[in-house]
């Protein structure tokens, strides 16, 4: 799915969180959003995922403006994307129940094997029956990624998936992101540690104060940073 963000602004209590953003996410592309805290990266992800409505501008999904979409069409587009928050929440219920949430939302039945597979992949197979709310931070993050990937989205949005988790979970999360990219899923990733994705040659968008200040390859941005470093 091609997502085009055109002249989008978003305000919170009068403060501009996003300022006239113009950006396009091509199908199968990998984009890294970087910038300091409060730059507007999370807000941009939420606007892209149709969680937040922009106050100005428009977001186009395969050429269709979001403002003209009916409620059922919005749900249909949301079902082609998944979003993993920085500190994801899990619902009360078992780990496997949580993992299958997106499948139930799409009316998919007979998903038991799929759930087993994905939980094995994220190293949570032994905890399948355990209450999800008893998981550690790293396990919760992995479960959130599992429940997002199980639905095989076209667009995968992740907000700082490596923060607040242990080193083992960080490397596992990176592996999933790399797998997702190589299987043709569009990935939009907010991260403070973009270096590890350098081999995948992503497009990088640097933001500050709600604005895009740079938009080029990650390699170029990191090179510039290295050049300007004291």
């Amino acid at each position: 799915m091609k997502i085009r963000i055109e002249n989008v602004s978003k305000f919170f209590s009068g403060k501009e969180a996003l300022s006239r953003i113009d950006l396009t996410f091509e199908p199968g592309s990998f984009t890294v959003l970087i910038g300091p805290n409060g730059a507007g990266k999370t807000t941009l992800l939420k606007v892209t995922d149709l969680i937040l409505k922009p106050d100005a501008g428009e977001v186009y999904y395969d050429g269709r403006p979001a403002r003209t979409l009916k409620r059922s069409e919005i749900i249909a587009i949301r079902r082609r994307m998944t979003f993993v928050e920085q500190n994801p929440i899990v619902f009360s219920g078992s780990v496997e129940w949580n993992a299958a949430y997106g499948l139930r939302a799409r009316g998919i039945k007979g998903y038991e094997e799929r759930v087993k597979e994905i939980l094995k992949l994220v190293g949570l197979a032994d905890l399948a029956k355990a209450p999800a709310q008893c998981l550690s931070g790293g396990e919760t993050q992995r479960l959130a990624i599992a429940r997002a990937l199980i639905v095989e989205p076209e667009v995968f949005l992740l907000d700082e998936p490596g923060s607040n988790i242990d080193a083992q979970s960080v490397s596992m999360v990176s592996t999933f992101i790399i797998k997702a990219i190589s299987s043709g899923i569009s990935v939009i990733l907010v991260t403070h540690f973009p270096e590890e994705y350098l081999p995948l040659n992503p497009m990088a968008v640097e933001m500050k104060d709600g604005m895009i200040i740079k938009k080029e390859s990650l390699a170029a941005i990191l090179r510039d940073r290295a050049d300007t470093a004291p």
Partner: protein
Amino acid sequence: MMEFIFSPELLEIIILSLWVSGAGTLFASILGIALGSIIALTEFRWKRLVLAFLNTWMALPAVVIGLLVYLLLKRSGPMGALGLLYSPGGMIIAQAILATPILAVLTTSALQEKGRRIIDTAHSLGAGWIMTCMTVVREARFAVITAVLTGFSRVIGETGMTMMVGGNIKGFTRVMTTTIALETMKGNFEIGITLGIVLVIVALIINLAIQLVRRVQA
């Protein structure tokens, strides 16, 4: 006194008390939970004002609500034609009005913290409107049950308002609290104490239920 304790009249009073307070709490739950959910999960201009109004409404003495409902239901009042004054229906309305802000405020505080995130997560995972609502209710169920039990315990112990609107008519609107008040004034302390014990038992059951809900939640 023993005759009264083992009489069908006492049973009738207890059943009527539970019925009136149960129905009042049910209506208050429908209104209060809906109101609390709207306040917690949506953004609108007069949100703070509405919350301040609800908090004031919650702090109002029950007799003031009794007076308002009385004026509303009396023969010449706006709802006088319904003939609900001095009837269980009138008592249910008054108790529902008393419990609604309690339920709304408790629901708001239960949902305010996590409700928006639950909705966003459900949406981002592709849930439609019905599944999202079911998820919110499921996640907040313990807090909502606690709110309902709190509302019920508030209204079942109410006397002055119930007396004003219900009239304490024997066999028709006489409930536990109004019977206690009446019998105490007549000097029949044993009957008052008996009904007091029943009320204490009801309060105890409600509190045990709240503790159980909290333990399950933990």
